[in-house]
Structures are given as C-alpha cells and as structure tokens.
C-alpha cells in the first residue's frame, strides 16, 4: 500500500484565462451545417474562461436575423460529403428533408437550435457583433437582429476589437 500523500489540485489555468487569451470567430455562412461550428467553438471557449467574440458577416447574418435564425436550411446540393448522387440531391423536397434530418440529429445530441444556442452563448458572457456592410446591403437594422447583438460595427472596428485574439473565419 502506498503512503497517502497530499492530493494534487487541478490548476484550471485561471491565470491563462485571465491573462488575455481571446477568441474571435467570423461567421460568414448561413446554412444550418455551417452555423454550428462557430457556435460550438464559442460555447466551448466561454466554458474555458476565454473572452469570446462572434462577428457575423454576409450570409452569417442568417444566424442573427430574427426572421431566419430559427429556420436555417441544409442543402445536399454540391456537397459530395453527403454521398448522394448529384441528380438526386437537387430533387424537389430534398433540401427540406435533409434539413429535417440534420435538425433531428442535432437535437438528438442535445445540442440546442440556433436561437437557444445564442441565448446560451450570451448567458456564458459571449459577445455578438454584426457587420456594417452586410447590414447595409441587406437593409437590416439592429431591430431586425437577435437582441443579444451588441452593435453593428465596421470592418475597422472588428480589426481593432480582435487585436491580440486568435481569429477563425468560418
């Protein structure tokens, strides 16, 4: 039998978390399958105590547009990873069916739908930003966007904001 020693204490690297590791995720896609990578990484980073910002641009607006955020679609067209013959993937109703299946799979893993996911990210202290040019192009104002979006900001603002951050373009 080993002699009991004092138990080790996990460090949890709190100093690292406080010491300024920062993550910026640029969300530029508006399909159901491409909305999730950013949301999942943001949530994971927040759970590790990392300052996290999401910047939504172009099609990424679908994720924060109140009208579309709950109804993102997945299309098998042009996606060889679905292993579906091209001629079949474009048939009427195929997108709806593929979207339904993917939603069910996501829910089956207890991963929340997009609006609820954003609520979770906000509750965990995440920051959401919308791109000025995209808003202008789509003629959207802050009122059209998810309430947790802090502001519509310019590309320059984002560059300033992301100083020193690890930045991912999705």
């Amino acid at each position, binding site marked *: 039998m080993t002699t009991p020693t004092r138990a080790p*204490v*996990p460090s949890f690297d709190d100093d690292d*978390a406080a010491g300024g590791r920062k993550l910026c995720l640029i969300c530029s896609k508006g399909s159901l399958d491409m909305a999730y990578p950013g949301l999942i990484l943001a949530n994971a980073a927040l*759970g*590790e105590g990392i300052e996290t910002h999401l910047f939504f641009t172009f099609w990424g607006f679908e994720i924060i547009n109140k009208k579309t955020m709950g109804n993102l679609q997945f299309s098998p067209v042009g996606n060889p990873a679905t292993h579906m013959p091209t001629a079949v993937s474009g048939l009427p109703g195929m997108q709806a069916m593929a979207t339904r299946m993917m939603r069910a799979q996501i829910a089956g893993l207890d*991963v*929340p739908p997009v609006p609820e996911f954003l609520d979770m990210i906000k509750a965990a202290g995440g920051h959401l930003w919308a791109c000025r040019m995209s808003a202008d192009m789509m003629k959207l104002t802050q009122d059209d966007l998810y309430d947790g979006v802090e502001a519509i900001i310019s590309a320059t603002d984002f560059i300033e904001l992301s100083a020193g951050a690890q930045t991912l373009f999705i």
Partner: protein
Amino acid sequence: MTLATIAGRPVHVNEEGFLTEFDEWDEALAAELATNIGIDLTDEHLQVLRFLRADYRAQGETPTLRRVSTVGGFDTKRLFVLFPKKPAKKMSYVAGVPKPVGCV
C-alpha cells in the same frame, strides 16, 4: 490513480487531483475541494453539486453545462458566478465526478 489525503482522510485521485471513486465523496470533502480552487462553498453550490452527482449516478456520465442548465434547472449565468471561468470543470472537480466529455 493514487491514494492521497484530502480533509485528513485517504481518497483515490487521478493525476490532476479529481476523485476517482464516486463513493468516497461527501459534502465535507466538497468544502475542502472547493477551498483548494478558491471557492467558498455555499448551499447554492451544494445544490448544483447534488444535481451533478445524481445525474452522474443515473446517466453514468458527468452532465455538460447545458444539461446542468436544461435538466438541472440552474441558470447558466449563475453557474459562471458560482464556479468562475471554467464552471464545467470546476463543478465536476468539487462534485467528485470526472470532467464532462460532451462538446456542448
């Protein structure tokens, strides 16, 4: 897995210091584990820990932060206040269960 002393009694822990034997935990031990990581254990913490342990016992795995919120009914913002910065890891350490493995 080694035998170590926490709160004056021998318990089994892994190399990081997480308890490896579910039944070696009790609330007195939790207070000591919490102190180790700078948390002053309150009844509100204990409610979360009790859920974590009950869910672990029922499901065989540590609930993720989302599950603590959706199934346990605890507010996510509050969890970040109670177990600052890394709530999922810290609450599992104090509850004497493994770190959660789920992504969300």
